[in-house]
């Protein structure tokens, strides 16, 4: 399902990518997963965040790829990096030490507290779907200053209860991360193809804070597996600009 705007100038995936890119501040040090997170981070670097530092768990620090990598281990990430280090070092000296401002994660499923499942659907020992597993996500979610999550909206993705918590978001709600001794602040935004959700400061439950152009609040509610809270002052996400779309499509075209 790919929604676009009225006159087909952009797709909902493009809206999602652009909205994610906008989250990344200039000079932010960002741990980037492959796929949409990497695309969004590279759009941001070409737009408002030229000094953002992209770090890939393959050990590439400060990569400036001229095209989108197909994996987190593509040669272009290493070649264009300021420094290349081993995987032990990237996780211990850089991620774990709290040097990363923003972690950019995808997800198969999330719940209302932005906890993530990328492991199994169904019982662990007899899963109906075996997903890829944790990868770098649990410690990215734990140790980055903040976390931005991107995934497409559906009732199978935004679920009432996760079968498996692969990466902790806000756990059971406000105070949970602090109680567990986690250093990072956890997810600050969930960006889907329908809108943007942010944790309520008081409860840490996700609230719809903006809907993408052409999407109604009911559309989002219908695609969410729990009773979704909506911010009083929710907004309409600004549509992708011509420049954003140009940068994004140019990046996609050469990959």
């Amino acid at each position, binding site marked *: 399902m790919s929604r676009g705007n009225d006159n087909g100038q952009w797709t909902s995936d493009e809206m999602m990518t652009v909205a994610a890119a906008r989250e990344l501040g200039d000079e932010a040090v960002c741990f980037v997963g492959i796929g949409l997170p990497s695309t969004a981070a590279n759009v941001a670097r070409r737009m408002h965040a030229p000094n953002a530092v992209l770090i890939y768990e393959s050990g590439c620090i400060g990569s400036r790829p001229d095209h989108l990598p197909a994996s987190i281990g593509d040669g272009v990430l290493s070649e264009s990096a300021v420094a290349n280090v081993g995987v032990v070092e990237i996780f211990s000296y850089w991620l774990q030490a709290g040097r990363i401002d923003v972690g950019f994660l995808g997800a198969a499923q999330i719940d209302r507290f932005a906890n993530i499942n990328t492991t199994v659907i169904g019982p662990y020992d007899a899963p109906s779907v075996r997903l890829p597993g*944790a990868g770098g996500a649990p410690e990215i979610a734990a140790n980055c200053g903040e976390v931005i999550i991107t995934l497409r909206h559906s009732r199978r993705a935004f679920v009432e209860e996760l079968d498996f918590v692969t990466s902790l978001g806000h756990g059971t709600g406000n105070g949970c991360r602090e109680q567990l001794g986690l250093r990072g602040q956890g997810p600050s935004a969930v960006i889907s193809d329908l809108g943007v959700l942010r944790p309520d400061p008081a409860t840490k439950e996700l609230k719809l804070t903006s809907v993408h152009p052409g999407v109604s609040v009911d559309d989002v509610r219908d695609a969410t597996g729990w009773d979704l809270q909506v911010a009083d002052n929710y907004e309409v996400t600004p549509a992708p600009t011509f420049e954003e779309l140009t940068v994004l499509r140019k990046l996609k075209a050469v990959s």
Partner: protein
Amino acid sequence: MGEFLSLREAVARYVEDGQTLALEGFTHLIPFAAGHEIIRQQRRDLTLVRMTPDLVYDQLIGAGCARKLIFGWGGNPGVGSLHRMRDAVENQFPRPLEVEEHSHAGLAERWRAGAAGLPFGVLRGYVGTSLADHTKTIASISCPFTGEELTAVPAINPDVGIIHAQQADRDGNVMYWGITGVQKECVLASCHSIVTVEEVVDELAVRTGGVVLPAWAVDAVAVVPGGAHPSYAHDYSDRDNDFYAAWDPIGRSRDAFAEWLAGVVEGES
């Protein structure tokens, strides 16, 4: 001691049924040729360790070589699932596959501990996740100075560690560069190690970030140009993204996989 052997000899000498084996390489420098040789030699009951199983383990699992998988992320990067691995986990085909699941940070620390001769490593990890509920090799540990609770994971020390590198010199010293992953740890943590290389050179390259393994820390070196395909060797080849995409329908179908497998078994090492 960096002995030059053919890949066939190296696998025949060091790899045995029932062993714990690691073929490492983080997207880059994945030792596919060595994996295929293990399939050809029909090794069985292997415990396979790898941060990202990738196609090479999908192939070994589909060929029935593995009884257990220790891993962190089992997908086809940028494409989708590893269907042979899923078929083994979901349907026990071609045989049941026991799974020991960690995060990448946890596995990296297990490799570090293994290479460092320690029985365990420590990290800030797994807290609040379901992983510790299902993986026995995740424990809690207290800092003796601050009382803070952290996570401990046991060292990995495979019987054989296998990697691919760009170069060996004539003395058997090995060098690789680009994305260097956990290969040093894999070789140093393993009882024996096999390195396939693109070529033998008079002088190793000069590369910032390059890793050199002295010959005496490696058991066997086998010259296998292109031995990482469809993965790649920085400055020697590009990642064959098309093959990764093409693997999806092969891995998805038991019949297509059987056909692919027959081709590998008939192939030359």
